[in-house]
């Protein structure tokens, strides 16, 4: 078996690690990982916030997998015909992979931020991903946000990435100094004049995608306090059963922040049931941006946010959209309807609906941008099992080459 894994993030390493365990020790297989970036580990290196170092302990297991001499990692290699965002990457056509390897796994993640139709990119509106790439110093090297010229930041989105960005903006720079935050980033954070971070979500606390750990870190921020939530926002609907997490979220929000609101210089708020309707950037009349927000309710039948007709406007200095991610539309086997690669039981499916032999998808690339490391690990282990079962079904012979099934979608090969 000679396996190419396109992508060198946690999904790729968990697949490799599990294969080391499942394949016969005496088998002379190869696992080669390719990544556009010169360093491995994907989001663990360039996504996890610097003040969450324990999450990065998973790399010890990746290192263990990499010590096996049958595994090799090739960094700075852009597989496929998509132009790489990085100028210096070496290009490797997908056809080379298909003709040199017996098995292929796409573990390419979901690298592009979802944008909001009413909030086009501008100097006043950036993606949370560019903030994350800035504070992790991703090779894309986005410019630092002008934190010394802002006092009010509006984060659009109720996921953990939103809370990570808020926490980085509201934590004292001397606390962050203890972690692996790059010097250049600390310099910018030290000059920050951000006073309030508003976290805007189009639905309510029960629908928020953030999880308890990140919410609790916000609640317990030593140098900031939360605008108390109106009690009616924390009342669950009659007769609707809540998950354990939802119950705990409501309990925590009703207790409020550790610091009473008003006792700290920096503040933050969860602005539920608000959906951006437009952004007026600064002009001669207005030195600040004006964010229009449509008020919403959740339709119990569809669980979707529905506008009520009411609107309001918030003066803000920077809008940061944190609305999830999708795959690259020109990538092979990408399904535009899904926003990620098309797979069935871990096997890649072409536009024509045929399942490719020996070609698999793993992690966010395969299922969309959902799930923390634990979920990615379980999925990767499942992919590894599928690969081994398929391989053994064919008597363990690896002369079969994967067929790059005709239509890969997009502008290809």
């Amino acid at each position: 078996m000679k396996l190419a894994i396109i992508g060198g993030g946690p999904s790729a390493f968990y697949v490799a690690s599990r294969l080391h365990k499942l394949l016969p020790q005496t088998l002379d297989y190869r696992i080669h990982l390719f990544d556009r970036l010169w360093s491995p580990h994907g989001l663990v290196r360039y996504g996890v916030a610097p003040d969450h170092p324990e999450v990065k302990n998973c790399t010890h297991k990746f290192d263990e997998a990499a010590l096996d001499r049958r595994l090799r990692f090739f960094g700075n290699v852009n597989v496929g015909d998509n132009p790489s965002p990085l100028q210096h990457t070496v290009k490797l056509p997908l056809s080379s992979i298909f003709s040199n390897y017996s098995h292929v796994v796409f573990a390419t993640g979901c690298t592009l931020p979802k944008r909001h139709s009413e909030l086009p990119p501008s100097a006043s509106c950036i993606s949370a991903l560019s903030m994350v790439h800035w504070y992790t110093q991703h090779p894309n090297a986005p410019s630092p946000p002008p934190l010394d010229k802002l006092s009010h930041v509006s984060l659009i989105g109720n996921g953990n990435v939103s809370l990570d960005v808020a926490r980085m903006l509201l934590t004292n720079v001397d606390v962050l100094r203890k972690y692996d935050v790059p010097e250049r980033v600390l310099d910018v954070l030290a000059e920050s004049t951000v006073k309030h971070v508003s976290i805007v979500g189009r639905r309510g606390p029960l629908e928020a995608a953030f999880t308890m750990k990140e919410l609790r870190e916000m609640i317990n921020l030593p140098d900031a306090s939360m605008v108390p939530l109106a009690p009616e926002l924390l009342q669950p609907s009659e007769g609707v059963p809540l998950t354990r997490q939802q119950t705990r979220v409501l309990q925590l929000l009703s207790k409020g922040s550790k610091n009473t609101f008003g006792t700290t210089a920096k503040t933050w708020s969860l602005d539920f049931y608000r959906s951006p309707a437009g952004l007026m950037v600064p002009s001669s009349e207005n030195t600040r941006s004006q964010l229009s927000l449509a008020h919403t309710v959740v339709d119990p039948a569809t669980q979707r946010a529905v506008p009520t007709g009411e609107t309001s406007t918030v003066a803000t200095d920077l809008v940061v959209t944190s609305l999830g991610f999708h795959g690259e539309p020109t990538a092979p086997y990408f399904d535009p309807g899904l926003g990620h690669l098309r797979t069935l039981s871990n096997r890649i499916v072409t536009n024509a609906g045929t399942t490719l032999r020996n070609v698999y998808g793993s992690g966010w690339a395969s299922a969309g941008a959902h799930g923390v490391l634990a979920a990615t690990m379980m999925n990767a282990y499942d992919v590894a099992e599928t690969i081994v079962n398929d391989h053994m079904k064919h008597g363990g012979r690896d002369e079969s080459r994967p067929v790059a099934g005709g239509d890969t979608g997009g502008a290809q090969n």
Partner: protein
Amino acid sequence: MFTTPARLFLRSLKTLRPTAAFRSANLAPCARRTMHSSMVRYHAGIERPAPGTGIKIHFNDSKGTLIKTVEANEGDDILAVAHEYDIDLEGACEGSVACSTCHVILPEDKYDLLPEPEDDENDMLDMAFGLTDTSRLGCQVKLTKALDGMVVTLPAATRNMFVDGA
């Protein structure tokens, strides 16, 4: 012909010193920063007690089939015990309560003997797959003599979890 995969290795806190004293009128001297390193919670293995003298733990799979019966010491946590005896229990964050991969299910009577989980453990349990009323993170359960003979059940993994989960 090939090296066997190495065991987990210790990492110690390192102080990174700038190597060359690179003096130039235009450059500020390098700030001395320490490299942050998370403490590794696990050493090469826990010590196995002499057979018959330790606290007996039975690891079962999700269907109730016995995987292995092992012995460990007072104060050892379930995750460390599982790793010592090569039981398939993951610990991605290595015991720092930053993941839910060491989730285990305990029998009710033994569960009730344990101190309540702290907030941070409960926050991680929220996200554990197949959570039950007697679930704990294995890395947070320290063995005592009262837990002798306990059955520790590993939760089921499922193909659909990644799609259905949060």
